[in-house]
């Protein structure tokens, strides 16, 4: 392990362990995250990938895009298989980082139980959730991570009902509830924050959880060139909050000075194009509430831009505001 802590892009080792030639769509946000996480984690590691876009684009017999050991078995067991690999390594005296990289479906929904088991046992593994907010591998079906209002093939824009009617599950909150060693959200557009958190996760032992928002060109109906731009807007509008949980405390790592209206984020994505203004209002209110729920106990708060005509929402001093 390198001695120097990594803080900026330039610090990232110039070695690729997730290499070119993978079959991901042009502009894939997930591969940006995976490539850089692997650069920082390095090759003294072993990767488990459950059923997901990642396994399909990176490992079709007889090749793999991972230059590290890679294993796959099923969809719902990332927490469990990584537990087993790490246990074997402990027995054999191998000091390698065992990384599980699962999608939002494999984390929020079908994989939640195995994740909870591993987190509760305090397994010494690094769990990465690459979150593109739907089951993209099977062709864009809604997951527990899909945001309110979004179109997916199982939340179509119908005559009666338009888009998903439920809010995105707060995965970080569930993970933190297990009293884990480290948990952090990442954005592929906030480079230095990304680098620091992955490096920190690598250095710690115990259960570590990294949650990356990874825009998906076909699933979000966006332009391939705008993947990183959209990831940035997710943070600036509060749709994605950057924070970390360490030593029993959550801390914001980046706070926009002023949250942009959520429409700035929605308008670049075809999956939200149909949303009526009353739905946008609902989503905007959720964003503001979530923001205060995540950061309510901290002193400085950005005002949250509400939908046009609504008064702005400010932190009211109650740490459980909006819950």
């Amino acid at each position, binding site marked *: 392990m390198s001695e120097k802590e990594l803080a900026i892009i330039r610090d990232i080792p110039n070695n690729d362990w997730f*290499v*070119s030639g993978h079959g991901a769509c042009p502009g894939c946000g997930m591969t940006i995250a995976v490539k850089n996480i692997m650069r920082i984690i390095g090759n003294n590691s072993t990767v488990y990938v459950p059923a997901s876009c990642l396994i399909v684009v990176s490992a079709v017999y007889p*090749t793999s895009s991972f230059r590290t050991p890679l294993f796959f078995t099923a969809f719902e067991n990332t927490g469990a298989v990584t537990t087993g690999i790490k246990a074997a390594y402990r027995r054999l005296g191998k000091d390698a980082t065992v990384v599980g990289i699962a999608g939002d479906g494999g984390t929020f929904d079908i994989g939640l139980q195995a994740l909870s088991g591993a987190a509760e046992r305090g397994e010494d593994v690094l769990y990465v959730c690459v979150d593109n907010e739907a089951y993209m591998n099977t062709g864009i079906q809604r997951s527990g991570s899909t945001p309110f209002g979004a179109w997916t093939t199982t939340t179509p824009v119908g005559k009666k009902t338009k888009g998903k009617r439920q809010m995105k599950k707060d995965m970080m909150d569930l993970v933190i509830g297990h009293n884990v060693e480290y948990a952090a959200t990442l954005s592929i557009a906030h480079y230095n924050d990304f680098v620091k958190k992955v490096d920190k996760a690598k250095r710690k032992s115990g259960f570590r959880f990294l949650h990356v928002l990874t825009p998906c060109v076909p699933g979000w109906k966006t332009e391939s060139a705008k993947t990183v731009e959209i990831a940035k807007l997710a943070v600036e509008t509060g749709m994605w909050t950057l924070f970390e949980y360490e030593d029993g405390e959550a801390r914001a790592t980046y706070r926009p000075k002023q949250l942009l209206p959520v429409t700035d984020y929605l308008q670049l994505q075809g999956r939200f194009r149909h949303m009526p203004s009353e739905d946008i209002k609902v989503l905007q209110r959720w964003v503001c509430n979530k923001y205060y729920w995540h950061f309510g106990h901290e002193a400085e708060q950005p005002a949250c831009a509400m939908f046009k005509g609504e008064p702005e929402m400010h932190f009211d001093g109650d740490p459980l505001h909006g819950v």
Partner: protein
Amino acid sequence: MFEVRFHGRGGQGAVMAAQTFAEAAVLEGHHAQAFPYFGAERRGAPVRAFARVDDKRITIKSQIYEPDMLVIMDESLLDIDPVADGLKPTGSVVMNTTKAPQDVDIGVAVRCATVDAIPIALETIKAPIVNTAILGAVAKICDLVTIESIKTSINDRFGEKLGEQAARMNSLAAEMAYARTVVGICKGERTIVRPKVWLPTWKELPQGTALGEDTLSGVTVGPGGSLGNYTGTWRTITPKYDQEKCVRCLRCWFCCPEGCIKRLEDDHVKWDYRYCKGCGICANICPADAIHMVKGAMEP
């Protein structure tokens, strides 16, 4: 039995084209089937779809290896995929291209219908998706369907999925393409290049499911083996780098989904175009205006 193989790239709607063609054939009183190649490749990657037409019920459920007709939705596929493999010498080809039939070379000299479908698609459906326009050209060269049945089928299939307006525009695209299609004979000079394959017998295959880094029958396998897959062939636009303007922030190196932007000793960067899919993220996020996307797959 008349067999058709559609060649496109993921996201171009080759499967929809095959299904629409089959429906048109059914409207003409034939029996027909259409099906995709059941693979997992993503948008931009070469994909295939198939259709069969006959006068009686079709019971064959296998893929098509010796087609009577090829429908090539993207001319650049000819350089990266053995598109004309197995095409019958008596067969025909329909291609989206700016060229005239006699200037097209698919590797087999056959009856050829060409149409420049991109401008038609842009004019009608406002997107460079040619799967309906190309069906107009199909109607021109294939006796099994008429432009009327193609239009009805488009209205049915697209109307149901995308609404009336979209159906009308797609139908118009087919009609315009039908009018502009030129029929002739293409060239058969190109050597059809087949990719290297490693197809071991069960005894030769390593036990279990594991592979280490290796080269077997000229194919790179195991960890890192995807480097043998040159995804740069998917590219239709190409980043051009102006080193003078580069501020060496390395954001493009960080943000490239392919890992094809290589970081040099001095933190300038260099593209490995063999893998660049032309997504355009690097140009979009460059704070110094040092990267621009240029049309085409050519390396600048």
